[in-house]
Every structure is written in structure tokens, then in C-alpha cells.
């Protein structure tokens, strides 16, 4: 496929897309989290559901990402991870993330966020210890990557709400699933 017009920079896209007041986004997410906390009492369960929601969002979001970023192939995990951090976070959340801590065989890395609109004004009460407030992000990444045939496992290794100095997501590539021929060869 022609790569004549290569991937566009995150900033360029962010400048071009429709934007909304971040507070609305932040508060909406917060309200959702709280509703979940009240509905399903157990923090573990909330983490799970948030991740699940994120996954579903990722599935939808990936196409917009590809269309706007003009990325034409996501075969190399390293490359893709970079894309997500540099372009993806920028074009959606307006913040830049960095990719670090590559392991030897290039299947595991960390995405680090210094700044995260999701957690503006958030303060974890004692009752919510163990809550991964931003768990939706990990879900989004997981979902998006799965759509480009990368099965991954995304976990939080640092969380500012728990007193760390940044947010760090560890993304581990489990396997790349090729596209199968969906139909039985009955004829």
C-alpha cells in the first residue's frame, strides 16, 4: 500500500479534530466510576468493568485513529506502541505519552503519562484503595491493539493517585493473531 503520505503527527491531528471542554469528559468519567462503585460495591469488580468498557471503546476508536493518523500498517509491535503513545494519546487526550522499558525481545514496554486529564480533581478516599481509577485506559489500549491483531496484556505499574510520580502502563504482547479464513471449506 502506498505510504506516500506517511503518518501524521499527533499534534497536527489534535489541532485539526473537534475538541471539547476536558472538564465535561473528566467529570463524566468520574461520575461513571462512582456509579459503578455504588452499584457493584467491590473495587475489584469495578476495575474489571472499567477495563471492559475501555476495551469496547478501544474497538470503536481504533478505526478513527487509523483513518485520521493515516497509519497504513501495524505489524511491528515496537512501531505500533510508539504510534499509540505519540499519536494516539495526543490526538485523543491531548497529552503526550512516552514509551520506555523495552524488554530484551521487544514484546513488553511501558507507556508513561506525566499528565492525565482523567484524574483532574480526583482524590481517592480511603474506601477506594485498590481501585485503578484510570483502568479504562488500559482497556482502550488492549482493545485497540487487539483490532490490529495484537493480543496484549495491559497492567498499571504506576499510578499518581496512589502517590507515584507518573502513570505507567505496562503493555505486554502475548501473540499476534493472523487473520483466518472464516468460512468452513465445505465446497
Amino acid at each position, binding site marked *: 500500500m502506498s505510504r506516500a503520505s506517511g503518518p501524521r503527527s499527533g499534534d497536527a491531528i489534535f489541532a485539526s479534530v473537534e475538541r471539547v471542554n476536558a*472538564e465535561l469528559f*473528566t*467529570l463524566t*468519567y*468520574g*461520575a461513571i*466510576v*462512582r456509579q459503578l*462503585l455504588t452499584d457493584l460495591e467491590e473495587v475489584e469488580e469495578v476495575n474489571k468493568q472499567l477495563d471492559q468498557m475501555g476495551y469496547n471503546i478501544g474497538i470503536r476508536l481504533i478505526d478513527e485513529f487509523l483513518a485520521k493518523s493515516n497509519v497504513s500498517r501495524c505489524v511491528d509491535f515496537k512501531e505500533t506502541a510508539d504510534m499509540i503513545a505519540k499519536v494516539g494519546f495526543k490526538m485523543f487526550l491531548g497529552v503526550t505519552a512516552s514509551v520506555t522499558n523495552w524488554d530484551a525481545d521487544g514484546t513488553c514496554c511501558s507507556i508513561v503519562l506525566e499528565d492525565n486529564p482523567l484524574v*483532574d*480533581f*480526583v*482524590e*481517592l*478516599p480511603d474506601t*477506594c484503595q485498590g481501585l485503578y481509577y484510570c483502568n479504562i485506559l488500559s482497556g482502550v489500549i488492549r482493545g485497540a491493539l487487539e483490532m490490529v491483531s495484537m493480543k496484549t496484556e495491559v497492567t498499571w505499574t504506576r499510578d499518581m493517585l496512589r502517590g507515584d510520580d507518573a502513570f505507567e502502563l505496562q503493555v505486554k504482547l502475548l501473540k499476534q493473531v493472523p487473520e483466518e479464513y472464516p468460512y468452513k471449506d465445505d465446497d
Partner: protein
Amino acid sequence: MATTACFIIVSRNDIPIYEAEVGSAVKREDVAHLHQFILHAAQDIVQDLAWTTSAMFLKAIDRFNDLVVSVYVTAGHTRLMLLHDSRNDDGIKSFFQEVHELYIKIILNPLYLPGSRITSSHFDTKVRALARKYL
């Protein structure tokens, strides 16, 4: 600095969600309820005023002996009430304004449910600092 200054935040449904004795006087058990009584009673006055004026800062709306009640009513009808014996109104006013900003930060915390007690220690320390600064 005010010798007596009892600061209370009252939610719209008349529930005190934050209380602090910020006066320089040593905190005495036996006046705690008196202060509450005065502020509590003062709300009758606030209620009258709240819908009649649109001003946020209502100074000295009520008094009991030498104690004066000043109130700051937000658009959301949350009432920041101060029971004080000092007389520097603009000090009090700016105290209210800054506390209001802090309060909004609290409100915006999604995990804080409106109308519940404010337990954030950070908030508490900030408020007391402001009290030292302005009252």
C-alpha cells in the same frame, strides 16, 4: 486575628458538611454547641436574604451578644458561614472567596458525593491556613 472564629460549611439541605474552630482562642468544649446554635439559628436570616439579594457575601447578617455571623452563599446555595468577633470585613470576604475555590475543587472530585462531610485533610489544612492569613 479573630479570637473567636467558628467556620462552618452548610450544604443546601442545611447539613453542616465542614466545621472548624479557626479562632485564636483555645477551643473550649462548652462553647462548641453555642456556636452551632447561633449559626444554626442564623440560617433563618440567610434563608430570607438568599433569594432577595444576589450578592454572595452577606456580612453581619445576625449577631448574638458580641458575636457576628457573616455568610457567603454560593450559586448552589451552599452556605459558608463564619461566626466571628473581629470586624475586618474585607478580610472575611477574601477568606470566603478563597475557601469557595477550595470548595469547588472538592465538589469536582467525582468520588466526593455532594452533601456529604468533607474529610479531605488537605482541604482542612488549607482552610486553617487561610483563616490565619485573613481573619
